[in-house]
């Protein structure tokens, strides 16, 4: 059944930094078309998980598989080209490039390999595609602005636009609502839902804002000290005593 098709899974994934086990035998899977939430207290290893999946870190042990192929050990650019887009917890736009150029840069996923990088980048098709994506995330008014002048909420949208330009099958969003106003959070949540519903992109979401995470996710994993301590629908996770303990401490868990 297509709905249950697994698009990405990890096998015994470990990432140690010296003695710190940032990821400790993590086995997770992502189903095609779902919004998967990854939550957990600070330092639980959520961002490390993203960095290992996207190739920025090499796993200490274990492997990551994307549509059946092993991707751990590949270079991040290769993984991006295969169709995994990501945003960063602290936004990383190309500050001195315009919004349009930022998105065009990501339209080159195929041009950066082989010798096709010798070709012109500003073709009508590329510009049109970039403008369409910019419209999708609602940044049309800022097309020719350098990215550095955008407010934080718009920078996040720009990062999402850049990731979309990769035509990703899977999109990893690292705290897309951090530092935003209530109105901006509502808009970004709406956008994330649209990406899945209208464009059919599978989404993995690290989120600190519990209400956003619970509201968006179809299914969640809870990480604590590098281990998966719970899995399930938002309702199941909310009720799980282990999760409450991880967030609030043992005494709270006992009382509730």
């Amino acid at each position, binding site marked *: 059944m297509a709905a249950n098709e697994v698009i990405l899974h990890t096998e015994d994934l470990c990432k140690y930094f010296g003695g710190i086990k940032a990821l400790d035998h993590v086995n997770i899977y992502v189903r095609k078309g779902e919004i998967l939430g990854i939550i957990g207290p600070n330092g639980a290893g959520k961002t490390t998980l993203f960095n290992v999946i*996207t*190739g*920025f870190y090499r796993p200490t042990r274990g492997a990551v598989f994307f549509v059946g192929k092993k991707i751990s050990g590949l*270079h*991040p*650019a*290769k993984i*991006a*080209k295969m169709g995994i*887009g*990501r945003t*960063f917890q602290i936004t*990383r*736009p*190309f*500050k*001195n*490039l*315009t919004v349009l*150029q930022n998105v*065009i*840069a*990501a339209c*080159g*996923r195929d*041009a*950066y*390999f082989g010798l*096709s*990088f*010798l*070709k*012109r*980048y*500003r073709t009508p098709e590329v510009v049109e595609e970039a403008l369409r994506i910019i419209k999708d995330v609602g940044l049309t008014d800022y097309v020719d602005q350098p990215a550095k002048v955008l407010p934080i909420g718009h920078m996040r949208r720009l990062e999402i636009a*850049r*990731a979309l*330009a*990769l035509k990703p099958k899977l999109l990893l969003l690292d705290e897309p609502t951090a530092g935003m106003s209530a109105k901006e959070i509502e808009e970004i949540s709406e956008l994330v839902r649209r990406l899945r519903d209208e464009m059919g992109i599978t989404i993995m979401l690290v989120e600190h804002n519990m209400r956003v995470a619970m509201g968006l996710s179809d299914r969640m994993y809870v990480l604590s000290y590098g281990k998966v301590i719970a899995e399930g629908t938002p309702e199941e996770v909310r009720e799980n005593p282990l999760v409450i303990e991880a967030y609030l401490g043992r005494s709270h868990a006992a009382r509730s």
Partner: protein
Amino acid sequence: MYYITLMTITLIYAIAVMGLNITMGYAGQVNLGQAAFLGIGAFTSAILTTRLGLSFWVALPLSALSAFLVGILLGAISIRLRYDFLAMTTIGFNFITVAIFLYYPIFGGSFGIVGIPRPVLFGLKLRGPAYLGLVAAVFVLCVLLNLWLERSWLGMAFETIREDEHAAQAVGVDVRTFKILAFAIGAGMAGLAGSLYAHFKMCVAYSDFMFARSIELLSMCVLGGLGTIYGPVLGSALIILLPEAFRPLRAYRLIMHTAILILLIRFQPQGLLGRGSFLQRKLRELLGGLRFGSQ
């Protein structure tokens, strides 16, 4: 003749600075050893023409090629380095190259190589205005190359690396490959300039390519405006021509260079013609829609 000499030198420097501008201005990789590539080009051409008797027209592209290849080497060494570590590595590279020029007999030791022939075209020796014409032709070629670079995915990849290496990787730019290319292409242009330099002066020695020369090239690059097409020409012209115009102040040249750099970094860090600089804004107002520098 005096003016022709000045213009020839200015354009030769401009070519080397244009190369440096690709490495530093577009790709954002600090290179404080550009003079070494100038030297590699100059010595390649000198050796090929004097010892092997090859024609200048063969030696010129081979000079660019040899500098390009050494550029790949430096790029590969520097892949994991950034900012001050990269700066130190490239300085060290300059010193090592100069030491090799000095100690290996094939480079002529401290005297260098003399008797480098003038290029011959249709039986005519190119000198004076004719040589200037040749240099100008190579210069125009490099400008065209630079214009093409700005519009290609290659140039786009360079700019993403300059802006943010992590984000560049996340959009599919293989940072390693493009960093090496940035060094190699910049080095190749310096190699071309080196060959032209050797056949202009007709003698080359290690002392022409020391660290101080790299700093000179750097000043030209920063003065004109990093990451622009027009910057390197403007920078080279100003740094070469100004001291000539103020001959009585010649003794204080180093002080002037330093003062210019400090003032620039304080007031116009993007260079005279860089993005959003004072001159660029004024020129834009004057010329309406015409765009200066990379957008």
